[in-house]
Structures are given as C-alpha cells and as structure tokens.
C-alpha cells in the first residue's frame, strides 16, 4: 500500500515551458543577480559592506583619483594592482555610493554575475551536460563566502571573474589548438587578472607553461622521435607563446613601468614599507608566520582555508570530481586544464611557504598567537575550481548519485545556516584581524561629532580614523599620496592642516610628536582636543574656518 501523489504532465510541461523562456545561461545570470541583490541588501542592513579595513582603502584609492587635493591616476599608488580601483572610479563619483561601499558592491556584484555565467559555460564546455553545468554554477552562486565578498569592494571577485574568463577561453583553446581567437581572449583576460591581484601573475605563468607543453602531449614516447617532434613543433610553439605572452604579460610589464615612473622603483610593490612583504616581516619577527619554510604546514593552511570557504562537503565532492576528471576522462589536455584550475592553490601555498603571505585560521592557528583569524578570504579563490569539479562529478554519475549530490549540497547549505560551517570570510571581516568594524575607536565618534571643516592630516596606512564613515570630504584629507602637502606638513604642520589625527607610532606621531622640537611647534599652532591612550587629535588655533 502506497500513499501517492501524481504531478500531472500538464504541470511538468508548464514548468518546462517556463524554463525554456530564456536560455540556461540567462537563468544562471538571473539567479546570480537575484542572489547578489539579496546578499548586498543583507550586508548593507548589517553594516558589513565595508567591514574589512581593506574595503575602505580600495574605495578611498578610487575616490582619490577623482576627488582629492591632488586628483589623478597617480593616486592609484604602487602596492595594490590598479584594475579593481579603475573599475570603482565611475561609481565613487557619487558620495553616497562611496560612503556606503555600494560602489564596490556594484563592481563585485557584476563580476559575480559574469563569473557565474562563465563558470556554467566552462563546466558545459568540458562535460557537455547542461544539468552538470547548472549544478556547478549553483555551487558557486550559493557559496555564502562568495556571496558575502561580492557585496564588498574587496578585489577577490574582480580577480575571480578574470580567472574564470581566462580559464574558460584557455580550456577552449586546449580543446581546439587551432582556435587562436580563444587563445587571444585567454591572454586578454589573463592580462586583466594580472592587473587585478598578484595571483593573476601566477595564472598567466601557468598558462604560458601549459601552452608550451601542450603540443608535446601528443608527441611520440621514444626519446629520439620525441626530440624530432619537439624540433619540428618549435616554431609553432614559439609563435603561440609569443602571441599569448605579449598580451598576457603586458600588465606585469606595465606595473613595473608604473612603479618606476611614478614611484621611482619598479619593485616598489614588493620593496616599500607598505608592501605585503614588509608586513610579513613583522609577523616573522613575532614568530607568527607558521607557513614560512614549512611546505606541509603551508599546504595544510591553504587546504583547510579553501575547504572552509568552499564548505567541507562541497570540497570533498570536488576532490572526488577532480579525481574522476583526471582518471576517467581521457582527453589529452586534462592535466593541463587541472593545472590551470589549481593555479590559485599552488600560488597560495607557495606564497605561504615563501613567507610572502600569512593566513590565520582557528582550526590550525595556535591559540597562543595574538590573532587566530586573518586573511582567510584567500581561500575563496578555490571556489570556482570546487564548483567546476563538483559540476564535472555531477555529469559523470548516475541519476541516483545526482540526487545524492543535490541532497549533499542542500546539507552543505544547512551546515552554513546552522553555524556548523562558519561563513569564515565574513567572520574575518566582522571580528577577525582584517576587520575594521570590530573595534571602532572612540576617536571616530569624537570626529563625527566635532569635525567642522578644514584639511585633515593623517597617516592613511595606520587607519586612525575612517574617512568614509566620518563627515570629512575626501578632498579635505592630506595623506602620503598628496605631494607636496603631506611632506611639507610633516615639516610645517600648520601650513595646510586644520586637524591632525595621529596614532601611536604612526608616521605623523613619529614626525610631529616624538621629536621635542616639532612637538613644541605643534603645540604652538594647535590645541590637543582629544586624547586616548593611542590616538591624539589636534585642532589649529584661531584660524578662520576653511571651506
């Protein structure tokens, strides 16, 4: 005896007709758009859009290009790569979009939608299965870490979209090595990736190596014939390598040139005091750089970080998917495709090993460290690869297994919802070391209440006061990039500034407060209007209010 329910053919036909109104890619775009808007609304309501300290910095860099004491492209600086900021520029014209961070949400959200569509196309390209492609895209767009980061001005989604676009066209080329337009597009998007985040440099390097090795995959096995084949293919390989590299590596050359022309050092991005390398030295001095020089620890750190971002169930499925792709699929280019997909993994493990980067994650970082949550968002770079592998796995199993995959995916979402799997990239922004909103200094409230116009001198790197959250217009700030205002102010503080914000041991504190002579000068022209153990605020004496 069975209790039964019949879904009538007319109903099924109706659903099919509805689904056929637009193409699957368009459905993916619609779903991604809906989720992007909904999650942005959530972040906006919770005040999480600019929770990362870096989020504000990205917005400020873009804003300074169009609205500062010394506007212009030189404001892009020489540490962070410029494309995410260039994309923000049209939106930060609006003070509302800049101050709320929605300018970043628009850029990251657009990248998210395009990423979802091209992830769908990538899985379809390899599996030739629409349901699997849809599954892969869903794994990506339903990932809460991705959903959160696409609401912020952080640069991860910008890199992800160019990573996916470049990978899609590269896989297309791997499938048909006569498809030169695909190779050129892969190079172009690779170029975009190289000026988005440094991870992009590694991506194009891997693609270039694959490009050289790819024709050799079909070479005869015996050594004599192999070399003969390699010699005969040399010209073709050389041509394609030059064609690809000229465009793909152009961004890297541009960046060296930029550093040389604007900042006087082509390696400014790695040598300067503000570089990641300099910051890692501080961690190393505290003996809190766990991955440096330890390959296994570096591997474990990034493995666990990417697993936490993708979700433990999806990550496990992806490992199976990758194994199926590599060992069941017989296409000659599969190892090369896997190398490109895994480029973020290799890059991050190498960065940790070389001490160029640091990640703290509660499951691995010793509790004796000052912080146990930092930079875990680097793990989201593996979400596209996880989505691809999960999608591929979906294409290779029987209908019963597909139902199981669907159930496991729902279970994964459930684990995020009940808190078993934390939305770790959001957590880092909200309470981790990367967070700016975790401990808003009392001085911020003082400025909000008492700022009454005039130029403000502060060390932007120290992030003493959030400009974006204060009533201070960007053009009223003096920071290190405003030559000669900033440099002159460190000699004659009274020359431009009406307000001086300084934090213990920041550049301004060292220049104006630690030096007794300069301190005398400071007190001659300024009055200390706010004091806390680490932050001091000075206001110019008897100067008419400037507009």
């Amino acid at each position, binding site marked *: *005896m*069975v*209790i*039964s*329910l*019949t*879904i*009538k*053919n*007319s*109903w*099924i036909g109706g659903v099919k007709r509805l689904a056929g109104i637009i193409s699957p890619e368009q459905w993916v775009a619609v779903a991604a758009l809906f989720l992007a808007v909904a999650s942005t609304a959530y972040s906006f309501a919770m005040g999480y859009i600019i929770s990362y300290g870096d989020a504000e910095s990205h917005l400020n860099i873009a804003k300074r290009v169009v609205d500062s004491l010394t506007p212009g492209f030189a404001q892009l600086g020489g540490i962070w790569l410029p494309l995410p900021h260039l994309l923000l520029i049209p939106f930060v014209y609006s003070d509302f979009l800049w101050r709320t961070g929605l300018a970043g949400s628009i850029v990251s959200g657009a990248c998210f939608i395009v990423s979802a569509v091209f992830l769908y196309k990538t899985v379809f390209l390899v599996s030739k299965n629409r349901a699997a492609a849809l599954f892969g895209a869903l794994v990506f767009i339903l990932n809460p870490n991705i959903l959160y980061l696409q609401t912020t001005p952080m640069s991860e989604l910008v890199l992800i979209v160019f990573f996916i676009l470049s990978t899609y066209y590269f896989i297309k080329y791997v499938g048909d090595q006569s498809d030169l337009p695909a190779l050129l597009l892969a190079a172009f998007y690779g170029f975009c990736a190289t000026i988005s985040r440094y991870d992009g440099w590694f991506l194009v390097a891997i693609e270039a190596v694959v490009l050289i090795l790819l024709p050799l995959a079909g070479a005869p096995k015996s050594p004599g014939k192999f070399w003969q084949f390699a010699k005969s293919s040399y010209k073709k390989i050389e041509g394609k390598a030059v064609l690809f590299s000229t465009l793909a590596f152009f961004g890297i050359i541009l960046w060296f040139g930029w550093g040389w022309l604007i900042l006087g050092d082509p390696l400014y991005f790695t040598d300067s005091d503000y570089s990641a390398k300099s910051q890692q030295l501080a961690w190393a001095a505290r003996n809190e750089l766990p991955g440096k020089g330890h390959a296994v620890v570096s591997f*474990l750190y990034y493995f*666990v970080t990417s697993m*936490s971002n993708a979700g*433990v169930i999806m990550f496990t499925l992806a490992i199976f998917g990758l194994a199926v792709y590599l060992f069941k699929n017989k296409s000659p280019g599969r190892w090369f495709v896997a190398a490109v997909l895994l480029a973020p993994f290799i890059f991050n493990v190498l960065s940790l090993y070389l001490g160029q980067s640091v990640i703290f*994650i*509660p*499951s*691995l970082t010793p509790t004796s460290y000052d912080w146990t949550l930092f930079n875990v968002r680097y793990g989201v770079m593996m979400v596209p690869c996880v989505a691809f592998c999960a999608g591929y796995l979906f294409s290779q199993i029987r209908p019963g297994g597909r139902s*199981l995959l669907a159930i496991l995916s729902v279970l994964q979402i459930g*684990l995020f919802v*009940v*808190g*078993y*799997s*934390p939305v770790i990239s959001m957590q880092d922004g909200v309470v981790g070391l990367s967070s700016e909103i975790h401990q808003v200094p009392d001085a911020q409230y003082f400025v909000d209440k008492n700022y009454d116009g005039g130029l403000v001198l502060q060390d932007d790197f120290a992030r003493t006061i959030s400009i974006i959250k204060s009533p201070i217009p960007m053009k009223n700030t003096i920071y290190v990039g405003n030559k000669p205002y900033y440099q002159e102010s460190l000699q004659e503080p009274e020359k431009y500034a009406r307000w001086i914000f300084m934090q213990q041991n920041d550049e301004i504190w060292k220049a104006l407060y630690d030096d007794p002579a300069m301190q005398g000068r400071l007190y001659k022209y300024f009055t200390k209007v706010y004091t806390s153990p680490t932050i001091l605020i000075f206001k110019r004496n008897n100067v008419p209010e400037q507009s």
Partner: protein
Amino acid sequence: MTDNKKNILCIAFLVLVGAIFYFATLKAVPGFVDLRTGLPNNPAQFGGIGPFESSHERSSYAMVLSMLDYHTVSLPKPLADFGSPDVGYYNGKFYSFFPPGVAAMAYPFYILGEHWNLPIAFAYFSMCIAAILALAMLFIICRDIFGFSAPLSLLVVFILGFGTIFLNYSITLYQHIPTIFLMFVSYYSVWKFRKGGKFAWLWAAAVWACYGLGPIFDYPNLILMLPILGYFFASAFSLARTDDGLKIGLRNSFVASLVVLLLLGVAQIYYNRSVFGNWRIYSNALPRYDQTLGSPDLSNAATQAITRQKESVASVFSEKNLPLGFYILTVSVDKGLFVYMPIFVLAILGMYAVRKKMTLEIWTLLAICALNLILYSSFGDPWGGLSYGPRYLLPAIAVLPVFIGFWIQSLGKRRLWGSAALFALFAYSSAVSLLGAVTRNVVFPKPEALYADTSNKFWFNARYLKLNQSGSFAYNEFFSGRISLTEYYLILFAAILILMLALLLLIPKYEYGD
C-alpha cells in the same frame, strides 16, 4: 546442512566464544561497593584499575545505585561525588551526564547479581550481552544482506568482536555497545522492510523504535542513525513515470509506523519534564559538577543549563575542530583509529574493491562511517576523555569489518598474501585491544598526559602486565594466584589467534570454492 542450521550453529558458536572472552576480560569486582554512606574505603579501586576506571562508568553506575535505593535518577551527594566530573546539576539536584538507557539496562542485572553477591559483575555483564547480540546481528547482516559465506561472516564478526576496541567497551559500562546493537537492528529491519511482505509494517516499526530508543542511550544517536533513516526513506519512497505524469509514492507502513517514534518521543519529553521540570532540558547540557573544584552554586544552575544547552548545539560540533579532530581520531598516537586498529587499512581497500558493486545498503554503511568520523572530528573533545582508543568512532568501527569482507572476496589469486596480511594486522589490532581489556581501559590524551606527567601511548599499559595489575574479574578471582597476568594475556591472545587462523583456513573453501 541447510543455511538456516548453519546460521544457528554459527550464532551459537559466537555466543559461546563471546561469552567466554567477554567474561574473561569483564571489568568487575565481587561484592557491593557501598557508596551510600560516603566515599569508598579503597580509593585506589576508583579511578585506578577495575570497573570504575573512568568517571564515565562511575556516573552511569551511580545512576543504577540511585535508581535502586532512592527510586530516582538524580544522585545524592556521595553518588554525585563518585560520578564526578561526569555529573551535572540542576534545580539543586545532581544528575549523571548520561541518559538513563545504560543504567536501565544494567539495573535488572544488578538485582539479579545481588543474589550471588556479584551485583557489579552482573550489571557490567549486561553490556557483554548487548555486545554478543550485536555480533549476532552483524553475522545475520553479512549472511542475509551481503551474501557472505558463513565462515566469512564469522570472520567479519570476529574482527569486530576481538580485533577492535569493541572488545574494550563490551566489558564495561558505556553507551557505545547498545548504540551499535540498535544500529544493526534498525539497519537489518530496513532491509527486511525494503523486501516487503506482510510483516513489513513490523520491520518499519522496529526501525522507528530503534531510532526512538537511540537517544535514551546517547543523544548524538539522533544524528549518527540518520543514514539508516535515509536508507529507510529511500526504501519507502518511489518515483515513477506514468501516462498521467510523475507519480511520487510513500509506503503506508512507513508513515503508519511513525506512531512508534512519536510514542517514544513523548516518553522522552515526559521523562525530561518529570526529572528536570522542563521538557527541553537534557542531562548532557547541565552545568558540570566537579567535586575537586568544591561545591557549585546551585542557585543559578537553571540559567547556566539553558545557556549551555544553546551553546552546545552551535559550538560543540564545529567545522573549526575538524582538522585536529580528524588527526586525533585517525592517526594520532593517543587515539588514532589506524594506530590502534591498523586492520582497517584493509577496510579502505575493501571500499575500493566494492566500488563497482555499490548498492543502497553499502552506501548506507559508508554514510554511517563518514558521518561518524565527521561528527566527532568536529567535536571539541575528540579524544573522548581517558578512553582506550577512538571510542567515539565505535559506530564506524562496527561497520568497517564488512568492507574487510568485501576485500577478502576480491582477493582472487592474491589470497595467500592477503590472508597473511589480514592475519598480521588482526594480530596487532587484537593484541592492542586485549591489552586494554585485561589491564586498564584508560589512555590519557596528550594534553592531559602532559598535565598529569604520564604517557599518552597505549603500550604504557603493558607495565600493568608486569605488575600483575588487572581489571579483569575472572583473572583476579580465579587465576591471579596461579598464573601471571602476562601468561593470562598470552593465553587469551593465542586462543583468539587460533580461532582466527581456523576461520582463515575455512574461507577459501566457501568463498573461492578451493
């Protein structure tokens, strides 16, 4: 001989062997331990070697005594001290942290044992009975569901019963063995239900009954048994294309028998309400009473209980614990599955061997293993206190031998080497388990071992062999003056190996037709 007769004979053999070995290692002492008048006279016996090595056993045993003397599950102060720190407090009363299932099982045996002045031995033997029943169930599962030959089924059962820490927890008062028994019964019942027939509704009721009884022994059983419920649902659910459309069906007996679960759920709610005055309170979530830290503030216990209960769901099982927990439970020297029972390497090979013959039944077993491993790897204390081996993985340990069975079936011409490897790994695993069983079922986790300045390795227990210190009731009562503990250990070990060897010699005839 018919299959039925063969099965009966094998089960009788299992009962006999199980009874002998479990009695030989049973943790007990003769006579009464009167805690009702205060702390025991011989503290070395409590927390030392014997039936009360860990607070886990003491806490459940204290509940038996309280049920007997005070007709309540709350513990008077001396019993709370005895069970501490696995004791909580609420509304001015003390309670064991554990649900009442184990104590309720031991209770009638305790009364029976009183007639022969052996209440502890009888109470503890209730777990041996559950263990033997679980082994019999596994035998039936191997025979009926997987079609293993009788010797192979016996071998699978033998691996579980005498080559894993299943042995260590069959001779003392823990919740794991009844849990495994319920799992096996429910799993088999689903299979019977799936086959249909006029008694299908009865099998369905048995599944719900097992699931409903699960939390009476251990609360996480509600989660650990989910794969079996999934298997149950998949067996009741149907999807078919008809001329009219898509027909979705659910068997009546699945829905109707749900009443059994509802009744057990109501009973659980009634129990919580009558004991704690609040149906939502469960003993695991009570604030801990640790007698070494002095008397607790009983006045705010209610608030603490609610807070802890809310915390426990969200934070006790968390993904952030996963890497450490996974390491501890699989390869760490203190509790690692493959360190205590390397025979399970063969189970991994068995999973590979069976990959092309996957059925819903095999998927369910895999899901039980995966869920068990993930759940307890995510637990804040994956060590399981002072347990001997990864006791939290016992549900997975119980089903993994089936995969060794598949591996043996797949051996083909490599059977000689395979059997040798199996024998060697079994010998190691069995030696480790037996060591804990005849000495002390306690190994300190690394953090506590450092604090207590002791070892976190199981082989540290070998020193008890030299010192002739055993927790075994049989050894202490009947053999201690005649043979050394080392000799006793070696005799038992040799007997286990001989039986294993005999089974290995029988298998080729039945599995490969040699």
